[in-house]
């Protein structure tokens, strides 16, 4: 893609930031080894170097396929991803010391597997950037994607428990020793579908309304899709026993709706419906039990984590309390990377990775990580503002919001703000599905931000040799005309 003189692509800034991020990851690895072994092994830099090579490759792909993409997305995500790999490797090191084993190899243990998953995820992201040259082309497969998304959400619910249940949440497909979390990928498909649907319907939804108490409420018949998605997410809540995922899907839809129509009433309706549904589920769990019992359990644990009864019960608040104590031990500045004892917290490599890291890098470090997440979300929303077609706006806005909501759900769970539910921390916690899906999300944001920041002359339409533009009619989503 030729560069237009007088414009800045930001690619060199991206390279510089990436180098800084990798130096931080290497510094983290070094500090961990200094604290764990009391000396530096000659190989402490190898994971950071491998990651650098991977991210550099992605950077080159972006240079060739999305020259004008946002420069800070990749470095920020790379930093979080790298620190995740570093922390997981730190857990492996602690384990090998406790078991008096030699130091694990680069690709051994949880950290090594995470490194391998990062490779796979980056390859997927690069493939997405190479295949999808124009984000509007995705809207042609919107209904297919919507169907795929719903099927992906449903599969774990219908599978028998032994194929789909891990730690009480039915979110998985287990084949052999291998398990994937289809819901992570469903997010992406559903965002694309919602965006396409709302581009078509935005006028009906935003103009036809009744005014009650100064707020415009939509007509009854326009509520259909919202109610459908609400039911879907409640089904997820009940049958997959997972509040976080339910909140994620529903929040995603309501916010995309709000972005499309600029109507606050959708947010109000959404919040009331969700909290109403959750409260009813809680009451049903207390009285009827059955499929609602799991949710009732989690809510009780959340409300009274320090009760001896909850603390000592299996599946009780032990994990939550250990996580809170870890965060408390860390205090402002933490015990230093590698000097804490995250081993006390069950599942510290998945859901509770923030508690484990928080103990070692303290509030000061955790807030830096949180600001990084905030910046990623901000760049996503910025891409939505910058791009010039409604489909791209809604996809970018929806994806960025989902990422932010997911961080909120898991962090809120760990810190006791909301009932704990098993969400992964994007880019940080161990697990291939989450890493792959979130890198695909970033690739999509890169693609959209490239379209928004590209100078008009460099657009695909202006160069005959460039990537082929899909015919306008195919993705030209017609908006529906309102008949009063």
């Amino acid at each position, binding site marked *: 893609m030729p560069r*237009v003189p*007088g*414009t800045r692509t*930001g690619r060199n*800034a991206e390279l510089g*930031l990436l180098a*800084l*991020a990798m*130096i*931080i990851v290497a*510094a983290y690895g*070094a*500090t961990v080894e*200094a*604290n764990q072994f*009391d*000396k530096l092994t000659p190989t402490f830099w190898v994971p950071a170097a491998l990651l650098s090579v991977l991210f550099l490759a992605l950077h080159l792909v972006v240079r060739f396929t999305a020259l004008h993409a946002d*420069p*800070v997305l990749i*470095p920020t995500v790379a*930093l979080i991803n790298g620190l995740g790999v570093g922390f997981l490797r730190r857990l492996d090191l602690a384990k090998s010391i406790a078991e008096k084993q030699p130091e694990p190899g680069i690709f051994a243990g949880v950290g090594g597997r995470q490194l391998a998953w990062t490779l796979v995820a980056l390859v997927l992201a690069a493939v997405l950037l190479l295949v999808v040259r124009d984000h*509007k082309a995705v809207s042609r497969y919107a209904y297919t994607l919507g169907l795929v998304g719903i099927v992906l959400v449903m599969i774990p619910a219908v599978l028998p428990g032994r194929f789909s249940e891990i730690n009480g949440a039915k979110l998985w497909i287990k084949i052999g020793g291998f398990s994937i979390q289809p819901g992570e990928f469903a997010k992406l498909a559903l965002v694309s579908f919602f965006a396409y649907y709302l581009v078509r319907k*935005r006028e009906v939804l935003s103009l036809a309304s009744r005014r009650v108490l100064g707020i415009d409420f939509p007509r009854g018949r326009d509520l259909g899709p919202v109610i459908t998605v609400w039911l879907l997410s409640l089904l997820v809540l009940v049958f997959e026993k997972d509040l976080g995922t339910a909140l994620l899907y529903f929040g995603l839809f309501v916010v995309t709706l709000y972005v499309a129509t600029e109507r606050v009433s959708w947010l109000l309706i959404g919040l009331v419906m969700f909290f109403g549904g959750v409260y009813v589920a809680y009451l049903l769990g207390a009285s009827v039990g059955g499929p609602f019992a799991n949710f009732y359990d989690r809510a009780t644990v959340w409300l009274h984590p320090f009760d001896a009864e909850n603390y000592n019960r299996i599946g009780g608040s032990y994990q939550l309390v250990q996580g809170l104590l870890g965060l408390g031990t860390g205090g402002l*500045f*933490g*015990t*230093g*990377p590698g*000097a804490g004892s995250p081993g006390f917290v069950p599942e510290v490599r998945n859901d509770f990775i923030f508690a484990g890291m928080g103990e070692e*890098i303290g509030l*000061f*470090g955790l807030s*830096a*990580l949180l*600001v*990084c997440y905030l*910046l990623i979300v*901000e*760049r996503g929303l*910025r891409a939505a*503002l*910058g791009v*010039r*077609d*409604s*489909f791209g706006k809604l996809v970018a806005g929806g994806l960025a919001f989902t990422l932010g909501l997911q961080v909120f759900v898991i962090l809120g769970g760990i810190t006791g703000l909301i009932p704990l539910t098993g969400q992964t921390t994007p880019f940080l916690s161990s697990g291939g599905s989450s890493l792959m899906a979130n890198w695909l999300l970033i690739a999509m944001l890169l693609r959209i931000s490239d379209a928004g*920041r*590209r*100078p*008009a*002359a*460099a*657009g695909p*339409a*202006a160069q005959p040799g460039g990537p082929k533009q899909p015919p*306008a009619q195919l*993705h*030209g*989503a017609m*908006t529906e005309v309102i008949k009063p």
Partner: protein
Amino acid sequence: MPEFVLTVARFGFLILLWIFVFTVVGVIRKDLFAGVRSKSLVASPRGVGGVVPQGRPAKAKRGKAARQLVVTAGQLAGTRITLGEAQITIGRAEDSTLVITDDFASARHARLVPRDGQWFVEDLGSTNGTYLDRGKVSGPTPVPLGVPIRIGRTSLELRP
């Protein structure tokens, strides 16, 4: 390993993290506030506090080439398009360069065409017309910097 080195490493790591955060903010500082600036431009009345003197823009800005097209009012307010050498089409059709969702805009409403460094606005047979400042655009009309092009409820300006 001495305690001193460990302490330095522990705090050094945290400082590095924050240096990274601030460097990132530095890179994106420019367009973090882009929306805010353009909003205040819209809000300020003509000639009062506005950054761009709108009274005699053609004379004041002569000799400077337009580099950006900025939407100053309407749903897309704050959107910026970096200008190159290709024409810019404006309308409700999804394949326009600038897709505006404005009830008073046509599917293919108007276009901006560069000729020898000067941009011309041309109406494409729209229903409600295109206005340059106060006058209706009938043929290709040169657009001076900072003069609003009005399409329905949307206003656009060329900026250096």
